[in-house]
């Protein structure tokens, strides 16, 4: 057990050595803290919520000030509390949606790649069909048809249309693994197909899954913002980042703060997740693992050389 902790500690160290990884980890950690505690803390301090319209006449489109650091929007709502609440909503939507699509995609790819033969062929043709559907257009169509769609349905829609890529990826990895000796060896020692698939193949494909999931969170935040911006995502008055942006569009130019702050939030979040995803890919890459073990190989080589003298 002691070894596991050393292994994970060295993994964290290697991750943090990646350029940018440290900043993205800090940014994401801050973001999570803000998303979890921010809304209630702000409500407590300020005494009003993200959807409360303050004195609509005086505080309509008020520029940033001490009382309202991010300014207010055209309905006199405090933008700081809207952007902070937006962090909670946007992050929750994307994390849950990504968790959903990753789970479905991994299971689908694993079964397809491991079963092989006609099962694989049928499953992949079905997937080809799904991939031919333009995701954004489908989401807009569905969201517009169902007026005032509840949040969970939106999550389900985004998650349910986001697993095609990952299942391809996992299928490819599974096919390679299925032919490896340790899988054959597991069979030769009496493990069943299902046991081998979950116990031996799945842990070995988790690396690309983790990288893919991290990059996906950024993508889904963008997707959700885009949808909300187009009016097809979260419904008024829900304060998702895209929706706040949408609110500010009517009076752009003069009220730059309504666009700037949610825009910055989206930019920083997506950037942080993408940088972290890239860093994870570099650190988890098996070739890097091998590189870190070269001392051992060199050691084995030197210990074997006396043979030549004999």
């Amino acid at each position, binding site marked *: 057990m002691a070894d596991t902790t050393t292994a994970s500690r060295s993994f964290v160290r290697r991750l943090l050595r990646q350029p940018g990884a440290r900043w993205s980890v800090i940014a994401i950690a801050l973001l999570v803290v803000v998303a979890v505690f921010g809304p209630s803390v702000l409500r407590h301090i300020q005494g009003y919520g993200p959807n409360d319209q303050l004195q609509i006449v005086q505080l309509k489109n008020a520029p940033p000030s001490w009382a309202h650091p991010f300014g207010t929007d055209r309905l006199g709502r405090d933008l700081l509390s809207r952007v902070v609440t937006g962090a909670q909503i946007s992050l929750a939507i994307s994390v849950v949606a990504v968790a959903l699509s990753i789970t479905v995609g991994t299971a689908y790819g694993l079964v397809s790649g491991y079963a092989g033969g006609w099962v694989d062929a049928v499953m992949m043709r079905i997937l080809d069909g799904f991939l031919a559907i333009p995701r954004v257009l489908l989401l807009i169509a569905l969201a517009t048809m169902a007026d005032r769609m509840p949040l969970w349905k939106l999550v389900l829609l985004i998650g349910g249309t986001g697993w095609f890529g990952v299942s391809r990826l996992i299928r490819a990895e599974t096919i390679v693994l299925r032919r490896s000796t340790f899988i054959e060896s597991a069979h030769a020692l009496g493990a069943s197909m299902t046991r081998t698939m979950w116990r031996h193949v799945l842990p070995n494909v988790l690396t690309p899954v983790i990288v893919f999931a991290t990059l996906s969170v950024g993508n889904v935040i963008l997707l959700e913002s885009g949808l909300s911006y187009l009016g097809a995502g979260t419904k008024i008055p829900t304060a998702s980042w895209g929706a706040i942006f949408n609110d500010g569009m009517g009076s752009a130019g003069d009220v730059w703060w309504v666009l700037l702050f949610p825009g910055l939030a989206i930019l920083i979040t997506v950037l942080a997740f993408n940088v972290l995803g890239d860093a994870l890919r570099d650190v988890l890459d098996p070739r890097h693992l091998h590189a870190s073990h070269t001392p*051992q190989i060199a050691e084995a080589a030197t210990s074997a050389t006396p043979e030549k003298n004999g």
Partner: protein
Amino acid sequence: MADPLLSVRDLRTFFYTENGVARSVDGVSFDISAGETVGLVGESGCGKSVTALSLMRLIRPPGRIEPGSQIKFDGLDIAALDEKSMREIRGARLAMVFQEPMTALNPVFTVGDQIAEVVRVHHAGSKKEAWDRAVKMLETVGIPSPAQRANEYPHQLSGGMRQRVVIAMALIMNPALVIADEPTTALDVTIQAQILELLRDLQQKFGTSILLITHDLGVVAETASRVIVMYGGEIVEEAPVSDLFARAHHPYTEGLLNAMPQVGHERERLETIPGSVPPPTKWPQGCRFHDRCPYAWDRCATEHPPLYQIGGGHVSRCHLAVEPERRAQKHEPMVVA
């Protein structure tokens, strides 16, 4: 004599490929008694690994074990067993050691976990018991400070250590027969000797039978009591190990022996067998070795030789058994001419 532990009769494993039917194993019959080590020797592509996988029933489509093949193991008809019963036997009564210790272990689990996993698969104990057995087995296969090593990952171990772990996995359920497919090929010569010694020790300790598959006659000489030589998907010669080295009968075996370096013999170059194993989709007519054979005559190109008894449990699939005078007429093989 009591029934042998393993009795294979007319085993045929064919692969139905786009290029035709590959008759990789084509009518192989042999026995292994309890506690015996049998060497199975041949070039790459002669069918020895497919034979091993057939015994484990690990042949995947497009391959299949042809109807009529008989594999009797421990009183069970393996060729006819359903998959569930087969799984219970694999790893428990019948185990396999794979060639590549680098890839035969799962990189993301500790070696202790992987050995304990075999115990768990066969419902032979709790997690704790399985782990304790794994540590004990690591000690048995000669791994120093086993309790510590059990917590390490495969990449933290040397090649020899990994092969010991693979052997530990195969032996932990105390199987009656272990099939070792080129267990030493990927290792240094010194480590090879250690692993072979380990196999010998363990066999004496547990009374396990071993089917040792190799292309290295030296390995067989050190470990096995009986040798089976395969060529072209069939057995071409079978003999007690000393007998085979003293008087190899089949020209193919002769060629293999001549291709071995020998201590005390100053030779400029090692001899080779000209040509290569033909593809299993088109074995030659007559004797499958005739176009590479330095003694072949017209009979060899037309008449497929049976396994001739040549005394003392020694059999050979060569017409020289009935026309021994032909041995004097050595010539260049057809493939060279």
